[in-house]
């Protein structure tokens, strides 16, 4: 039993989602909160990520939407006086913040005890040298490396380390002059070249092509250790594990390798003294004998290196939790309180204990999701740093099955790994498309051995791909004479009905009908952690065609409904035939799929809230989702969880298996929304707004026609017929024009064309993205303000609504905008107009559920630009700022509950939402804001006025307040004039201004002191690059017009260098102006550290 007398714990969240640190920490934090609250411990949470589930009502005892910076955290500690702090549940952000607080004495000063892994252990894992030395001391292997200054030194080091070697130049960026040497000849050549430019080179053991294996290890304070999961990266060493396709459990490690690495992992966790969970990454030599060619005796050899230890919950641990059903974060939190592993129950079986290692009788496969195409100038290559924005996990009982499921889960429009739409890139280079390139090459006849040699991927996996290629060929050959046996075989290999239909030149419905007639349906299996050894009550499920029966009998089993007492009257539900109280009333909620730009944790919040609301109203909720980084895929968020594909075929199979009453498609963003028509055609009941209305809103052309009928103003538009007509139209309405394909999220392929050349180029691109739907061209208004209305309607009547204002003018995607609530600069008339329009649309489309409309406002005119009949990205923000839970009300409206209208606009404080960008992660990407979304996450903070809230939220997104100096580069006369006042303010508050030649001349001309720095290409000093490098600049303001391409290159270099040096960058005029104004009005001490409940009282 725990003997710690902990009453109040401070939990640090992870802040905004960014590349390398995403939704997995919402999951781990939420589990920690649950584990602590079970012990009646008060949980104080700091996390500015307003879209998370952990920051919702009913989770932590108190929430602070504040930056995860030592200054703010100390303020909270001073106020709350917690006696414990948890650092390992909020990713690197929380860990770094905690280390800083320990170092500066704050934790000691306020007697806050670090729970779980002690600080010195964390420090040991964070410092490479300390880490390596410490492990070498206990006889474990880490990659050896040594710096040398001359050829003789290189030879000596080479002898001691052994070939092959990686040679790195000491002082060059981006891997210049580095290379692999397999012998002295190669080494001397590379070393000579590198030493000519650099005084020293680094020689290390080259581990390219070694297997990369991870272990998730848990230790309690009594020294009990377990390895909960091991995972094998299909991509060998050299590709970041976050960029790798990963399978759990490992597939190509035999007993000796598996358990020897496990033994090492346990030695490591014991040695470091971790209490809780850690992730250990290994490199494993796939041919240890080759390294020791002298001795061929067939003995067991383990040639491994410990690459990294993360002394905290991680992306991998979230994946491991979902892959095994073992709640790592929950258990880690309990262990931090002093529990022993043997005292905790296995949450899945409830019969066995938590001190065990899950046995899987399926495999779990993760594929990352990249969005590199969304970044201008980014390189289409992956490698040793993370660039992916999300991931999916597929479960299956054959590797082939899991692989094909995972491909469809990515939601990139592919039906399987041999989908013709996959770009045909070479497989020898690692790119996001390598899996598909390999499949194509196998199909083209390239041998498994050759692909293995060029990629280092184990032949085992390539053989599996070959199996799929062969199966495709078989199906194709059979054509319409498809046999039961072959169809069953295809389904066992994870082929979708649509893919099979394509191969045999038939229709998906025809294949589905045939399949059902032949009785080929998937089996429902449980994730039970013990491979069926013990009975389990778990509701964590998946489908497989490699099964002969369901684990659960839906005709017999009754779903437990949580809180029937809350239902006062059945008459509450009038609209639909749904009746609470009857146990078989099951409502399926579709999740949002992989996180990507434009769809992330905010939709998970909507889904979880929706599922909870369903339960609270006496129905049974079933979540379907395939993203291991989410809270919605925690099996206690709904009555049932299917870790499954969000495709019509799979959803229908679950629908039929469960005999569900209906499906909710409007809470998980665009992915489920796109399934509406197909699901309905297949016979599912779609709850909420009708699919016809959804289609009217989604189809740009239909929606525009509706606006015309309702006399709602909108930018002039026309449906694209052919390119010449489009160009003719654009010339008529005058450039710039906006190109938008239908049915897309976050502005994929959306573009602004300033010339007919641009327009032709973009139209081609748009037609590539979405062939099936029309493209609409409209007038682009440059100086217009943007506003949005988020609302819920019930049978056409608005129940609640709120209007938000964007700081940035039109032209910046709404997901990249700074959003203010309540609006600060809108006329009352404008707000009224927007509300009237929303009411009109709600009525006409008979909306029952959530919706969002985006507007442009020019002077007193208001134009509608977009309408979505689903929960929007800003739902958690508006809900948490107003205290009115839009997702909850929307769910009740969807369920047909009678609800009274709620006022959601009467607030006396301000909430500001800021975007979080991850440009630093995307090599070469131009960090600019456009109509296509680029941000990966968001934060929001509160304040008594817009300045306070804005500064907090900007700090929370990683912009630190400038102390000394600002670099300003203003492109074009117009921007210079517009920014003049702000520049004067900067100067007045004592910041030193540096500027490029043109800008500095202009500023001095207006009596503002400005120091000129040379541009990068001028190769003269002092230049901007050296100043950035020397940290002489605290902030870069680079205002330019993204759609004017002159001066582009030099501005780009400045922006890119700013990002690469980790210096805050502002590129939008309105954001920069607001920032300068706020700086002039507020200092750090003015930013109050108040909890959420000091501002907001929840209204429901």
């Amino acid at each position, binding site marked *: 039993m725990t003997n710690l007398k902990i009453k109040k714990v401070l939990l640090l969240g992870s802040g905004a989602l960014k590349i390398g640190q995403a939704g997995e920490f919402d999951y781990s934090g939420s589990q920690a909160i649950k584990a602590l609250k079970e012990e009646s411990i008060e949980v104080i949470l700091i996390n500015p990520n307003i879209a998370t589930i952990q920051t919702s009502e009913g989770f932590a005892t108190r929430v602070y939407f504040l930056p995860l910076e030592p200054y703010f955290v100390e303020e909270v500690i001073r106020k709350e006086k917690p006696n414990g702090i948890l650092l390992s549940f909020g990713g690197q952000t929380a860990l770094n913040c905690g280390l800083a607080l320990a170092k500066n004495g704050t934790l000691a000063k306020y007697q806050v005890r670090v729970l779980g892994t002690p600080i010195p252990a964390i420090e040991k894992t964070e410092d490479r040298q300390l880490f390596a030395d410490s492990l070498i001391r206990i006889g474990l292997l880490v990659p050896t490396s040594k710096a040398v200054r001359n050829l003789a030194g290189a030879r000596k080091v080479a002898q001691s380390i052994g070939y092959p070697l990686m040679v790195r130049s000491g002082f060059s960026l981006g891997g210049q002059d580095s290379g692999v040497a397999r012998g002295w000849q190669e080494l001397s050549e590379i070393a000579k070249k590198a030493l000519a430019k650099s005084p020293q080179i680094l020689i290390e053991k080259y581990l390219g092509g070694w297997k990369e294996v991870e272990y998730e290890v848990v230790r309690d304070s009594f020294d009990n250790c377990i390895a909960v999961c091991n995972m094998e990266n299909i991509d060998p060493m050299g590709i970041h594990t976050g960029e790798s396709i990963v399978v759990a459990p490992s597939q*190509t490690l035999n007993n000796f390798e598996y358990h020897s690495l496990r033994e090492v992992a346990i030695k490591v966790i014991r040695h470091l003294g971790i209490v809780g969970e850690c992730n250990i990454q290994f490199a494993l030599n796939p041919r240890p004998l080759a390294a020791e060619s002298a001795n061929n005796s*067939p003995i067991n050899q383990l040639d491994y290196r410990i690459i990294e230890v993360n002394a905290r919950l991680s992306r991998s641990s979230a994946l491991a939790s979902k892959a095994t059903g073992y709640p790592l974060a929950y258990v880690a939190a309990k262990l931090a309180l002093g529990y022993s592993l043997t005292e905790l129950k296995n949450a899945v079986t409830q019969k066995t204990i938590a001190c065990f290692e899950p046995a899987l009788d399926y495999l779990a496969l993760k594929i990352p999701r990249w969005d590199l195409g969304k970044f201008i100038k980014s390189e289409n290559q992956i490698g040793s740093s993370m660039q992916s924005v999300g991931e999916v996990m597929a479960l299956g*009982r*054959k*590797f082939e099955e899991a692989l094909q499921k995972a491909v469809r889960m990515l939601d990139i429009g592919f039906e399987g790994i041999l989908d013709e739409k996959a770009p045909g890139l070479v497989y020898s280079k690692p790119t996001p498309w390598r899996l598909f390139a390999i499949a194509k090459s196998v199909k083209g006849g390239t041998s498994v051995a050759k692909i293995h040699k060029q990629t280092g991927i184990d032949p085992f996996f390539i*053989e599996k791909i070959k199996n799929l290629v062969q199966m495709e060929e078989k199906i194709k050959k059979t054509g319409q004479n498809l046999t039961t046996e072959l169809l069953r075989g295809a389904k066992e290999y994870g082929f979708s009905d649509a893919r099979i239909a394509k191969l045999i030149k038939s229709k998906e419905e025809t294949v589905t009908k045939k399949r059902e007639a032949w009785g080929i349906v998937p089996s429902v299996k449980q994730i039970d952690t013990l*491979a069926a050894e013990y009975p389990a009550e778990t509701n964590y499920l998946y489908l497989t065609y490699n099964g002969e029966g369901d684990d659960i009998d839906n005709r017999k089993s009754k779903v437990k409904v949580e809180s029937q007492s809350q239902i006062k009257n059945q008459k509450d539900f009038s609209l639909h035939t749904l009746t609470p109280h009857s146990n078989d009333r099951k409502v399926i909620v579709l999740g949002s799929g992989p996180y990507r730009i434009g769809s992330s944790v905010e939709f998970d919040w909507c889904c979880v809230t929706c599922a909870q609301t369903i339960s609270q109203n006496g129905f049974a909720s079933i979540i379907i989702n395939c993203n291991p980084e989410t809270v919605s895929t925690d099996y206690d968020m709904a009555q049932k969880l299917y870790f499954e594909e969000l495709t019509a075929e799979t959803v229908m199979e679950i629908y039929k298996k469960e005999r569900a009453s209906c499906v909710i498609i409007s809470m998980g963003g665009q992915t489920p929304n796109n399934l509406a028509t197909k699901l309905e055609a297949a016979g599912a009941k779609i709850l909420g707004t009708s699919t016809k209305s959804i289609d009217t809103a989604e189809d740009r052309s239909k929606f525009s026609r509706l606006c015309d009928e309702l006399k709602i103003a909108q930018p002039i538009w026309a449906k694209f017929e052919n390119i010449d007509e489009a160009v003719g139209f654009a010339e008529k309405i005058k450039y710039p024009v906006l190109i938008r394909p239908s049915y897309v999220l976050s502005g994929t392929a959306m573009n602004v064309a300033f010339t007919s050349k641009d327009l032709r180029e973009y139209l081609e691109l748009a037609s590539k993205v979405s062939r099936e739907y029309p493209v609409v061209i409209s007038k682009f208004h440059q100086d217009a303000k943007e506003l949005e209305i988020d609302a819920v309607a019930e049978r056409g009547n608005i129940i609640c609504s709120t209007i938000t204002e964007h700081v940035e003018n039109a032209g910046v995607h709404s997901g990249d905008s700074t959003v203010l609530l309540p609006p600060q600069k809108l006329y009352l008339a404008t707000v009224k107009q927007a509300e009237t329009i929303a009411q009109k649309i709600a009525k006409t489309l008979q909306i029952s559920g959530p919706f969002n409309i985006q507007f442009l406002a020019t002077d007193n005119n208001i134009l509608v630009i977009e309408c979505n009949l689903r929960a929007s990205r800003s739902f958690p923000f508006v809900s948490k700022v107003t205290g009115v839970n839009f997702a909850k009300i929307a769910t009740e409206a969807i369920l047909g509950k009678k609800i009274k209208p709620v006022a959601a606009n009467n607030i006396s404080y301000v909430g500001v939402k800021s975007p979080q960008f991850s440009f630093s992660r995307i090599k070469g990407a131009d960090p600019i804001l456009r109509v296509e979304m680029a941000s990966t996450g968001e934060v929001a903070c509160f304040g008594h006025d817009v300045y306070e809230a804005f500064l907090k939220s900007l700090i929370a997104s990683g912009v630190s307040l400038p102390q000394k100096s600002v670099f300003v580069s203003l492109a074009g006369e117009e921007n210079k004039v517009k920014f003049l006042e702000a520049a004067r303010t900067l100067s007045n508050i004592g910041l030193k201004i540096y500027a490029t030649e043109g800008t500095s001349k202009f500023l001095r001309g207006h009596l503002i002191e400005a120091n000129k720095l040379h541009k990068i290409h001028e190769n003269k000093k002092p230049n901007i690059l050296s100043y950035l490098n020397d940290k002489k600049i605290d902030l870069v303001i680079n205002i330019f017009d993204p759609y004017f391409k002159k001066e582009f290159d030099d501005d780009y270099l400045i922006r890119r260098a700013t990002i690469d040096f980790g210096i805050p960058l502002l590129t939008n005029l309105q954001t920069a102006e607001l920032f300068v104004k706020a700086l002039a009005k507020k200092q750090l001490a003015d930013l109050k550290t108040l909890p959420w409940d000091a501002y907001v009282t929840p209204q429901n």
Partner: protein
Amino acid sequence: MTNNKARLILKDGTIFAGLAAGSQTSVAGEVVFTTGMVGYDQSLTDPSYSGQILVFTYPLIGNWGVPPQEFWESEKIHVSGVVISDLTTNPSHWQSQKSLNQWLQEENIPAIVGIDTRKLTQKLREKGVMLGKIVVGDQDVKLYDPNAENLVERVSPKEVVIHRPKLEVGSEKNLTSHLKNPASHLSHRTSPKVGLLNCGAKRNILRNLRARGATVYELPWNFDPFPESNTPGVGSDPLGVSRKIKIDGLMISNGPGDPKMAKESIAIIKKALKAKIPTFGICLGNQLLALAAGGDTYKLKFGHRAQNQPTIEVGKERCYITTQNHGFAVDEKRMPDGFRRWFTNANDNTNEGIIHQKLPFFSVQFHPEASPGPTDTEFLFDYFLNKVKKRAA
């Protein structure tokens, strides 16, 4: 793999239809499952599985092919038949010499593949282990109950083998030799001598003992190493070698079947206890020690066959993850005199080991030699050898 149809037929009439792999012959036995995710090569060669049809709950089996014989747990496959969901036909591993299918063919062991092993496991869990048969095509066979037979006799070696210590890794072939010329080995005076009563021992027990400096006398299940008490009818010692052997400790191995069948082994262990020499039993050895000391054993409903069994050391906070493979257990209600429970299964509280309160007699139900499985409890070999060395000195 062929396209021959095969059926797994259980005693209760349940039929699973799949494809035949390995040897195209029908076979009957006791159907048991293991939930270990690695180590099919070690499991298949574990003599404890003798007479059993083994179901792997992990679906992908055969991924790393078949390693050289040095890495097996005995000289051959001991299971009667194999049940697999998805047999890997193109294995990949630097040690692989052939595919699992080839191996099964060579060793004349049939397998059935392509069936829902999870559903089968659930059945076995609910109804307990069951007799069953793999029927290839139409060649039916009768059900067969291996527990009615003395399986230990079937898998135990026929003669004594001496193994010298092997402190370093290397080929072990040249280090073993038959007792016909024992003199060369008796020179190892400093090395403690352990008698390994091989009732179906996994080779890793031997490796563990030798790696710790022991000279191991590998004894047939009924070989009596205590000549001073020449009870007639116990042991088989045609050459009279037992007089040349003086062991400092007795290791009782794992093995198949009902422990009560191995009466001669029990008699030998009784002598060891009487002589107070350090005695360490593993798995079947745990049951045999209990029986020899006056305790009792019983058959479990479906046994433990896994690599993830939590095992608590009684009286301590310590829990180990252990490999297990047993269908019988020591009855704690009839704990032998002077013994106490040493380890216990954290999931179902069954006995996982007994230890004498004063004398160096102890045994465990799990497998400290692992292979396959976690190596958490390998230290028990150190514990045992410390006692043996003390006696030797």
